[in-house]
């Protein structure tokens, strides 16, 4: 048997072991990218094989929390894809304004850039005070960063540009204070945000919501897990609730394709039927 196939077997055993020991479920993650990240972790942790890594991870919870940083992909930006936020302003916000109170779910919020972007958008549209935002992720370290709301100053110029392109109506600098370590964002923005550990792979729906934004999370899932996530979103969304996905994600290949209709197809904004 060639060594590549052996590595595939080891990879399956590793994610099974992680699931049994730590209840983190990577079994239905997209294989190619998961394998790549695990192989990177091997050299980082100086393991000669995935089996070696597995043995260490099972006996060392500290090492697992390090490995988790490889298995999740904390890549995020504020106002990423400004046209997505434009589409929200034009097509979603006007409908959301008709509700007396709102619940928004940011699923897979990573280090919080998108939470703050959404909060800024809602504030400018006069909705923030009557909105509860659930920001969830499986990586506790990412959630901790999100709660702090400090983002590297070197990225702020790009974020400012994106904010303006997204239809932002104020000076972006109104929202943060430049400090030594970075741009500290206004804590009032997240006064109504509940950050919580929630897994699209193992947890269930926790609330009815009006709008769910889940961007560049589902690309790491295989079809079965994507369908599970779409099922949760379908269950959580109120009748005619909105779902926003990442710019390269789609419902086309999912068994939930019939349960949603596109609102702005290009920006991946959908509505529950």
């Amino acid at each position: 048997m060639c060594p590549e196939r052996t590595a595939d077997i080891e990879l399956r055993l590793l994610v099974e072991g992680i699931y049994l020991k730590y209840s983190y479920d990577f079994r239905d993650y997209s294989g190619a990218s998961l394998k790549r990240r695990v192989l990177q972790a091997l050299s980082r942790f100086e393991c000669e094989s995935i089996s070696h890594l597995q043995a260490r991870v099972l006996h060392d919870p500290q090492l697992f929390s390090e490995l988790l940083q490889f298995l999740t992909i904390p890549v995020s930006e504020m106002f990423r894809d400004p046209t997505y936020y434009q589409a929200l302003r034009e097509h979603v916000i006007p409908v959301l304004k008709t509700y007396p109170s709102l619940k928004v779910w940011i699923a897979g919020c990573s280090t919080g850039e998108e939470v703050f972007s959404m909060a800024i958008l809602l504030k400018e549209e006069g909705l923030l005070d009557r909105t509860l935002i659930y920001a969830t992720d499986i990586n506790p370290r990412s959630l901790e960063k999100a709660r702090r709301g400090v983002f590297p100053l070197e990225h702020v110029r790009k974020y400012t540009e994106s904010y303006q392109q997204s239809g932002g109506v104020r000076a972006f600098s109104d929202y943060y204070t430049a400090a030594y370590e970075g741009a500290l964002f206004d804590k009032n923005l997240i006064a109504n945000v509940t950050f919580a550990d929630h897994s699209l792979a193992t947890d269930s729906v926790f609330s009815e919501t009006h709008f769910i934004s889940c961007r560049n999370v589902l690309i790491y899932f295989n079809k079965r897990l994507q369908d599970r996530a779409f099922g949760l979103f379908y269950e959580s969304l109120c009748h005619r609730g909105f779902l926003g996905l990442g710019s390269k994600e789609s419902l086309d290949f999912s068994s939930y394709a019939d349960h949603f209709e596109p609102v702005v197809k290009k920006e991946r904004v959908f509505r529950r039927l």
Partner: protein
Amino acid sequence: MPLTDRLPKLPPRRIDAVVIGASAGGLQALGVVLGGLPSGFRMPIAVVIHVPEGQASKLAAIFQARLKLHVMEAEDKAPLMPGTLYFASPGYHLLIEQDRTLSLSQEERVHYSRPSIDVLFESAADVFGEHLCGVLLTGANEDGATGLRAIHRAGGLTVVQDPEEALVSTMPEAALELFIPDFVLPVKGIHTLLVELERNNA
């Protein structure tokens, strides 16, 4: 002398997919490699060309206007279809899964690049093994060299654009420093090779 005369004998095996990587000068080179491929051409082709992130890619539109193949920007979970040319999107790595569907990822850049040629090539090598053809064209960085070697190690067919001809030879040369590919050809020769491989498959 017709180019096919200079090609070493083709391997007696089916080639199920083609992956191509290019950077600086790649658009023009790719135009020659793919130009005039017949509409009955069945091997799916996945391409990574380095393009600036954050800009909508026009690659699919540009090539659709010029080719008889079905051309599209790679979508997450889309099955790899015969006769289709896929371009990786700016800002996303493109990978191929064991079930022969496409998947995207936003992992760190590789050689400052996302999409990265190495990422596509390595994942494709893992899936297709000896039934893959990898092509590395002109470019100003080293992305793609280790990926092409991965294809070679998995038994796949490897092709490098002749550095003499490449607009920027860094990328082909980086591959040639790592291993000896099956073919080192000018872009016209690579075009002929693809046509021959398709004929070989029939």
